[in-house]
């Protein structure tokens, strides 16, 4: 019987990561006071473009990309505190998607593909991953096909809700060829407007699009094919869950702060409403949840900085996402309620939180999805071992 997962309490934080975190917190503090997040909610353009440029200048787009390709070669887990800081000011960007694409290239790209694409990602060309063929993060079958006919590779299929597609210059499309997983690297210019339908999302800080690929021609150089691709696909799902958890944890902190602030200023019955235990105790519960989210998160980040993701890292990522989803959903739900009718307004920041929570729980699998897989990892392994 193995319980190594319980005893693995790995938590590391080196000087480089500390510096990264500090600059992220500074940057995000400026973002908060600038009001740029609110300005962009209903704007046509995807994300505050100049903000992404600033993030690139800070080196974030290349954090996990090797130095020879223009990055700084830190572990991919180093992005976790950065994404948490962004989540804490509700700032969205293509950072996570771009990092996932870089991870895919690093692990499975050919020499030539690494050389052509990684420097572009490091220098701030945004990327997106088109993974799902439907709305089910648990589906294993890949529907979109990569077909070869008359000596020409061609895509056949469509992908809904491709996160960050509106800003992406490069699209990494998951498809199958004769039942085997492939990724296709598309330039944005290869899709015409008819193939590209922007989505209207509940979280208005986010941008995504639903894409139609049928008939898109692909050259051999654009195809990622690797014996370990299936395993790396699993890694992308886990890292995606981890990044979403990082952002959700930050957003839960944003939500908590928003609620606490109101509880300290709003008066009813001649008292500050924060003195009512019916409000105070649930808010303390949220803080306690948040503390647990952070612990799981930094642990998962530590394990993901190792070369390939082992069993313990998988357990850690799934736990981090399961708890962060539940925590944010609850924190945001209570934030609206504890603001009274003010919480029902568009002006109140609780709306940012509750909308983020619905988006975030779905992304890369909700809590129940991850707990189900954890059950297999934690309960069934006992019998086999």
């Amino acid at each position, binding site marked *: 019987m193995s*319980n190594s*997962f*319980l005893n693995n*309490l790995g*938590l590391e*934080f080196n000087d480089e990561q*500390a510096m990264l*975190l500090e600059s992220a*917190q500074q940057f995000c503090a400026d973002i908060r006071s600038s009001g740029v997040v609110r300005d962009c909610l209903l704007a046509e353009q995807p994300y505050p473009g100049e903000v992404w440029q600033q993030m690139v200048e800070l080196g974030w787009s290349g954090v996990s990309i090797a130095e020879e390709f223009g990055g700084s070669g830190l572990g991919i887990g180093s992005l976790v505190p950065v994404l948490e800081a962004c989540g804490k000011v509700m700032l969205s960007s293509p950072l996570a998607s771009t990092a996932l694409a870089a991870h895919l290239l690093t692990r499975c790209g050919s020499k030539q593909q690494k050389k052509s694409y990684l420097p572009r990602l490091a220098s701030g060309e945004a990327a997106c991953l088109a993974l799902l063929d439907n709305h089910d993060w648990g589906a294993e079958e890949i529907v979109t096909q990569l077909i070869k006919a008359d000596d020409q590779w061609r895509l056949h299929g469509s992908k809904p809700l491709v996160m960050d597609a509106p800003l992406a210059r490069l699209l990494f499309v998951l498809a199958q060829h004769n039942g085997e997983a492939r990724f296709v690297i598309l330039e944005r210019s290869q899709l015409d407007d008819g193939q590209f339908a922007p989505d209207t999302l509940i979280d208005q800080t986010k941008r995504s699009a639903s894409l139609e690929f049928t008939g898109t021609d692909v050259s051999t150089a654009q195809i990622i094919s690797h014996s370990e691709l299936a395993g790396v696909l699993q890694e992308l799902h886990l890292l995606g869950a981890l990044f979403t958890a990082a952002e959700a944890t930050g957003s839960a*902190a944003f939500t908590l702060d928003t609620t*606490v602030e109101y*509880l*300290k200023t709003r008066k009813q019955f001649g*008292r*500050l409403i*924060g*003195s*009512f*235990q019916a409000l*105070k*105790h649930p*808010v*303390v*519960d949220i*803080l*306690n949840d948040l*503390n*647990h*989210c*952070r*612990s*799981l998160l*930094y*642990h998962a980040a530590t394990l993901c900085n190792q070369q390939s993701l082992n069993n313990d890292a998988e357990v850690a990522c799934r*736990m981090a996402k*399961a*708890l962060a989803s539940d925590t944010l959903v609850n924190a945001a739900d209570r934030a609206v309620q504890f603001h009274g009718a003010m919480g029902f307004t568009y002006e109140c920041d609780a709306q940012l939180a509750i909308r983020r929570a619905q988006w975030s729980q779905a992304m890369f699998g909700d809590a*129940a999805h991850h*707990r*189900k897989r*954890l*059950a297999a990892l*934690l*309960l*069934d392994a*006992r019998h086999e071992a």
Partner: protein
Amino acid sequence: MTTADTETRELQEFRREVADWLAANKPEDPGFLLPQSFMEVGSEQVLDFLREWQYKLWSAGYLGMAWPREYGGGGRPAVYQTIADAEMRKARVPICFNTIGLGWAGPLIIDIGSEEEKARYLKGILSAEDIWCQGFSEPDHGSDLGSAQTRAVRDGDDYLVNGTKIWTTLGNFAKYMILLARTDPNAERRYDGLSYFLAPMTVPGIETRPIQKITGEYGFTETFFTDARIPAACRMGEEGQGWKIAMRTLQYERGAEAGAAGGIAIIPISTQDLLAMAADQQRDGQPVLQDPSSRDQLVQLMIEEKAIRLSDARADIPALCTDYPFSLPLSNKLRTSEWSRRMRQYAVSLQGNAGSRYVGDARAIEGGFWQRAYLNNFSVTIGGGTSQIQANIVGEHILGLPKS
């Protein structure tokens, strides 16, 4: 080779040494029920057994390892005791029951006590010769400890103490009590009227009446003071400083302040124990571990357990505690005791009909261990400050919310 390597090797060797000693010296099953915590010592028989065990552990050098040598301690870095404690848990040896001395009064005396107090009390705490109890709670004042009414009136070189304390763990065995009593009923702030004593339990005028607990045994007492003469020399600090010292005591009790002598005060129970028990249980004719709803419940408990353990580890890394930096120990204490309660109740529910049996029934699963463990768990969600009071503290001191 760096020093860190040498140290690690030294510690590894020490770990092995403790493990070997424990394997060779772990007491045989005495044939009667041993307590799951220091709050469950209800008979002389149990007391004698645990006293002998603690003495043996201390004589071997595995208790009070970081306490000063001149007072019976080992004078070594705290990490040795941490390792010894971990090995004790692993070997599942009996508890060290003199917790109120080892964990609370002892560190308090080391930190703020006089030379004389250190010389008089510390060694007896470690050897288990002197058992300690705590006289804070009163029948009418529990959570509202600051309103405690037990009176201490100065009379020459003594104080005359009158009043009633209650829920006194180990009260009928203790030689000393950390006592909170009111020396000035007219103080402007009620907190300022309190004083703190390292009081002998052996003077005339102190009587204890055992109280039967929810679990069935008699682990605590009601303690009556009738003109009990406590020497003024036993007062710790000045008159009126009792509240401050009592709050400091609670810091040790709640684990927010280090310095405990070591040993296991409460048997730890993990989800691994729960899984071992659940592996033999059935639901709908299937092993419980294959039942989807049970699986989800178990995983939720395991996620929380992992988060609790990681949070303990994270509290030692300041760079990872930048938000609400002081919240982690408080918030985790609250979580740990509440998680543990839910986990244990769930364990009883997993037993199906067998969950209705209790300690004493030969057919009870694991001798009724989980039923007893569940009931016992309320000692940590009530004793030492209830979960609700803890939540108030976190809300007010950490989040800055207004007082209730």
